[in-house]
């Protein structure tokens, strides 16, 4: 049970995370300017996901301090989002099949 054991991260730690996020922002802008063909969107989304993960894990304290339930909640959120996207694409992705 998550009690009052707070996240004893130091300010320095958070600043490091911030710099990582800024670096990734630079990276994603840079990657967008290079033609990677079909990989451009993949790279962009991968970097975005890494950034999102950093925020969720460290700024939102999901890593370490928070209990299992939080993780279950987050995963179910992502799962149902993917369900919405995935099954809708089951229609749009197969419209041209004959």
């Amino acid at each position: 049970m998550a009690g009052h054991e707070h996240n004893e991260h130091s300010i320095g730690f958070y600043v490091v995370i911030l710099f990582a996020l800024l670096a990734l922002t630079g990276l994603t802008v840079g990657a967008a300017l290079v033609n990677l063909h079909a990989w451009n969107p993949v790279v962009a989304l991968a970097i975005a996901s890494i950034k999102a993960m950093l925020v969720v894990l460290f700024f939102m304290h999901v890593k370490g301090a928070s209990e299992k339930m939080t993780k279950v909640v987050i995963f179910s959120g992502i799962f149902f989002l993917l369900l919405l996207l995935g099954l809708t694409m089951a229609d749009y992705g197969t419209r041209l099949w004959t």
Partner: protein
Amino acid sequence: MHTNAATTEHNPALRHHFADMTQQKNSASLGMWLFLVTEIMFFGGMFCAYLIYRLAYFNDFGAASTSLSLKLGTINTIVLLLSSLTVVLAVNAAQRGKQKLLFFYLIATIVLGCTFLGIKAVEYHDKFVEHHVPGPDFHFVAEHPEGHSEQAPVNQQHAQMFFSLYFVMTGMHAIHMIIGVGLFSGLAYQAWKGRYDRNYNTPVENAGLYWHFVDVVWIYLFPLLYLISRHH
């Protein structure tokens, strides 16, 4: 699931129907996370629409996207990431009972949030001037980089679809930012009055979660709206 009812001494912030502060805090935190899940699904509807039209109108979306200002978009991303830092530092300060510091970080967050909104307003204004706002006046001409003479004439409707989604998605995001700034103003006021201390700071933590979530949404919006088709 309170097992040790009498461990914490009575806190004035403890509400009558909870057994102890731990139970109260855990409930609030779970509630906040569940709320964020509803937010995921809320934005999910828009991401779904985006995904479908992005794939259907691939080239026109690319062309339309290049008219957004990469500079302002990047600056705004940086502003938002900075604000996430100030938020996490605010939470940290609250947990350590540093009330002055807490107040400072809350104000800093508000300032950064307002900066973001200000820049967004400038961008909206530019779009308005360029007739990129969906409606009868909508008109979009792609800027052809040299060497690409025979580009597809951009389908006006498809470009308009891009901007429809752009305005809806960033608009919803901006509304969330405005709500966030409102929340943080409330927190700042309470913090000024010294309501949060080492033992009771759940509102700061939860508002922080909300702010980070809005940040995460932007982390996805930025590449999806600004960065598609920047290469030539």
